[in-house]
């Protein structure tokens, strides 16, 4: 379980994350939603120790972030940011193999390569695995980076807007793949997501944030609520139930 206690993060005078307390259960998909500037991505970056917090504690399996050994933590939790860039000229397969670094420090064994192949086929990249990253479309590159995170094989997987650059088909594929990771392999997935209907259809829990604070935590059905969303997004919402999923119409 990931437990966040009173976490605060400020940039100058602006409190981006303000005294946030949440518990994220194991073996579920938890989505962070909220308008731009709500502090979702910052909170995700703090939980994954990409940026230092100004106050509070983050416990991953009852151990505070600062007490974790870097390398062990990298086998426990992985994070993928929205934008990724490297000067290295890498093929997809080479990029994905970097996911094994915490396990093998760059000397991949047969078992590591098996994991790499598995991640590549999971993301449907097998037939283009020897293409270079600069030859790929934005969506293919995004999937390659997600494959790298899968190869890292961590219990907790944190993704910051994984559907960025993806069309509807690939978005659906990614979300289904995340559900498989949770249901088949028992992973815990935490995502920041903008498309509220994807959050509604595929998450177990949703954390709604606004102005650096958590507004409400609950199941998808509890959060996809007209008055709550109208309040957070400052937008008129209409909610329909289609195939037992709550769909927002706000266009």
């Amino acid at each position: 379980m990931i437990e966040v206690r009173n976490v605060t993060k400020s940039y100058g005078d602006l409190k981006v994350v303000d005294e946030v307390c949440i518990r994220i259960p194991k073996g579920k998909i938890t989505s962070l939603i909220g308008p731009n500037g709500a502090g979702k991505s910052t909170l995700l970056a703090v939980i994954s120790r990409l940026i230092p917090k100004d106050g509070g504690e983050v416990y991953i399996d009852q151990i505070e972030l600062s007490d974790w050994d870097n390398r062990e933590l990298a086998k426990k939790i992985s994070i993928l940011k929205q934008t990724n860039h490297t000067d290295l000229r890498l093929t997809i397969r080479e990029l994905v193999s970097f996911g094994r670094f915490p396990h093998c420090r760059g000397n991949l064994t047969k078992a590591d390569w098996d994991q790499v192949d598995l991640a590549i086929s999971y993301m449907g990249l097998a037939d283009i695995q020897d293409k270079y990253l600069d030859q790929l479309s934005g969506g293919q590159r995004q999937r390659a980076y997600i494959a790298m995170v899968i190869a890292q094989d961590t219990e907790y997987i944190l993704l910051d807007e994984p559907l960025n650059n993806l069309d509807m088909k690939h978005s659906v594929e990614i979300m289904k793949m995340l559900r498989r990771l949770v249901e088949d392999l028992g992973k815990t997935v935490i995502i920041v997501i903008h498309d509220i209907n994807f959050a509604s259809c595929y998450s177990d829990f949703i954390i709604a944030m606004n102005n650096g604070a958590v507004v409400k935590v609950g199941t998808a059905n509890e959060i996809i609520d007209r008055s709550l969303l109208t309040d957070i997004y400052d937008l008129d919402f209409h909610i329909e139930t289609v195939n037992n999923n709550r769909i927002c119409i706000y266009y």
Partner: protein
Amino acid sequence: MSNKQRLIILTVLAVAVAGLYLTIGLNARNWDYALSRRLPRILAIIITGAAISLSTAIFQTITHNRILTPSVMGLDSLYMLWQTVIIFFSGSSSLLVRNVNLNFIVTVLLMVGFTLLVFKTIMRREAGNVFFLLLVGLIIGTLFQSLSSFMQMIIDPNEFTILQGRMFASFNSINLNILTIAVISCGVVFLLSWRYFSVLDVLALGRDQAVNLGVAYDQLVWRLLVMVVILVSTATALVGPLTFLGLLVVNLAWQLLAAYRHRTIILGAFLLSIITLVGGQLFVEHILNFAVPISTLINLCGGIYFIRLLVKEK
């Protein structure tokens, strides 16, 4: 052609030019004298080449920029300023000038301290803004240069000739007295750097990815930076400032080898630097008859290559 074949060709070329340099014009009467002059030079060239290619490769990966060399932090001009200051204030007969080993140690410590101070201040204030670092390095470098030339103008002419010998990179006036200590300090850094090669690959993915993959980023960058400064200081103290060599060989290695592993790139850059330095030295000694110092030659080639890189980046 695979990278392995390319590396083999580079190795053969490096060994060939080194062999040529050692044996050219040898005969039964002069061989022991000539070799006693040439062997230390070859050793110095190997150390310098390794130090400069390794430090530049590391520095470029830390800063995520392929057109930088560690000298942007004002290291070369700091070296010159420090040498000028010692001679200016304490005279060429002082202990710091006469005892080259002491001079070496003090110089290296000063340069490490200075760089860490600059880097730490900038990194904290500007959160790793490379352009700001460049600008500060440039300004500090110019300030140091102006201070040095001011002192050089009013210094005793006899003292100036001693200083002049340290101003230009040259393998003819290699500081052989510090060769032993240079071999030791570089050797230690090479051994230590070995286990960081695969971590450098991860660093090139960017800070966030490196942290995600379990690299203790800030701590690692510090260690690498200290290594870079020790290597640069050693190379500079040994032969003088060689600004463009690192830029030239490391970029050529990336281009030629099309690899992503720093292990391969650093080895390639090292071989290229030996070829460049020994080849350049052969050219200077046998064709130009010592009329032009090798640093001028390398800065000319490096400068042209640098402009090409700039144009291409656009």
